[in-house]
């Protein structure tokens, strides 16, 4: 065994410090969500749930919540579906122009979100000018799909990477049709990846600011609702909103991790049992 040195303290310390850094604003928001004061300054005079009440009484909040749910729900399903298709085309097949296909479907990830939003906004403005409509939630859905699909592809590809093709071949040899192989062998094996892609996509869309901001027209989602609010002045309802939305997000992420780990264990277990 090697001697323990300063490095063995400094390296773990860096991880701790980074975690503290990541959770400073999150903890600050949760802390301030319980203030009773109108002003968000330290020290907090008294604790209360007053601002949760104020938030829940705000109609704009409910509108934004509804829009966020629709936007995230639709874009998640579409982006993950496209991501699943894309992952097959990325990894399972080889064909002419494969590299071009990969570049095209990965490029939006390398785009600053605002530019992606602006570029699409220009196109939608011209398009809606011809069609006589205006950008709204529907154009934000398209924007989110273009932005999130590359993430979904990458996540599903990671799951597909260790895929054992012989299982499919065995099913085929046993007389299964192509569709049966897909439904009973391929998709169940890919399920942990698909599931994490779904959750990841949902949260990316739910928390997205730049693309929604550019493309949603007059419809507001939670991030743009908060942005337009804090641009005018800070109010204690935003920390309350943060605390309310952080909790379910954390639960979702932990669930994904548990499922992913269980799947990994099963895979290793299967191998050793052979």
């Amino acid at each position: 065994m090697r001697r323990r040195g300063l490095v063995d303290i400094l390296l773990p310390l860096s991880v701790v410090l980074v975690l503290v850094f990541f959770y400073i604003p999150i903890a600050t928001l949760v802390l301030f969500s319980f203030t009773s004061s109108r002003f968000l300054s330290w020290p907090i005079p008294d604790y209360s749930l007053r601002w949760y009440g104020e938030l829940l009484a705000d109609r704009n909040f409910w509108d934004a919540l509804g829009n966020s749910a629709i936007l995230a729900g639709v874009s998640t399903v579409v982006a993950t579906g496209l991501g699943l298709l894309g992952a097959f085309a990325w990894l399972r097949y080889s064909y002419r122009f494969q590299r071009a296909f990969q570049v095209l479907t990965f490029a939006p990830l390398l785009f600053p979100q605002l530019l992606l939003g602006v570029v699409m906004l220009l196109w939608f403005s011209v398009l809606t000018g011809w069609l006589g409509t205006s950008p709204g939630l529907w154009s934000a859905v398209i924007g989110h799909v273009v932005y999130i699909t590359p993430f979904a592809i990458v996540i599903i590809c990671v799951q597909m990477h260790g895929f054992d093709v012989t299982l499919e071949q065995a099913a085929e040899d046993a007389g299964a049709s192509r569709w049966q192989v897909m439904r009973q062998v391929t998709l169940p094996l890919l399920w942990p990846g698909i599931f994490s892609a779904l959750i990841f996509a949902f949260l990316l869309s739910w928390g997205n600011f730049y693309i929604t901001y550019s493309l949603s027209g007059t419809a507001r989602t939670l991030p743009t609702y908060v942005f337009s609010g804090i641009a005018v002045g800070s109010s204690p309802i935003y920390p309350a909103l943060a605390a309310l939305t952080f909790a379910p997000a954390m639960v979702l992420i932990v669930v994904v991790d548990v499922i992913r780990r269980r799947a990994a264990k099963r895979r290793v277990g299967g191998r050793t049992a052979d």
Partner: protein
Amino acid sequence: MAQQKSWRDGALQLTTLPLVLVFAAFFLVPLAMTAVLSFQGMQNYRLSWTWNLAIWSDVFSQWHYWSIMGRTLGMASVATGLCVLIALPVAYALVTRLQKWADHVMVLVVFAFLTDAVLKTFGWVLFLDRSGVMNGMLEVLGLGKAAVDVLFSPFATMIGMVYNLLPYAIFTIALSMARTDRDLVLAAYDSGASRWRALREITLPLAWPGIVAGGVLVFVLSLGVFLEPKVMGGGTSPMAAELIRQSFETRVNWPLGAALTLVLIVIGAVSLIAIGGLAFFAARKRGVRV
């Protein structure tokens, strides 16, 4: 392992065509449209199809635009350097020292990454504010009345940028380090290499592609931020994205916005190619195959 397919194959068409359609219609065409729009003009808040170079001559003659582009490049470079420098030890620690905790730490990082950036940025404002948590804590620690004023400065903007972009660097670098064969490092130890030497000659070169990828990702994404400069920087030193936003919203000048967007995209692409080239040569010089 990959199956050879021709474009006539149904499965290949099914898996590629929907994506090609979506990405062509809503990514490639918009890019082309942006280029086309930069040659048009604006009259009475309406687009007029004039086809001239008026916007471009305006863009190239205004020093103001280029100084903002320069500042954006500077901020993006600093943010990239900081993110990579912070992510390196963290990723290395997760892979070599804290394997047991790595999954849990990653869950925490993913959560911080996926929550609403507007709210997190607002959280920073509350923390850094003159009468915020940080100054309150400094006072308790006896560092006294000298309230630290960091909010609404380029420094605060930088904190926000590093905060929002650091996860990208951590993910890519940790991934490339995790895939490094541990046995190679152990072999180096066995043949008498010091820890420092093993790190320099085995771990870093093998993780190099991940480090470059993380850096490139952070750099490109940091070119387009306007939330942090506006909310944390107080709008005193705007960056390129703010300029683009204003040209659309305040000045309602689409062609100008389109032209500035293109300038930023080109700057990003050129730096990407430059970084990629440099990284490639640096790696080759050290005898690493890329």
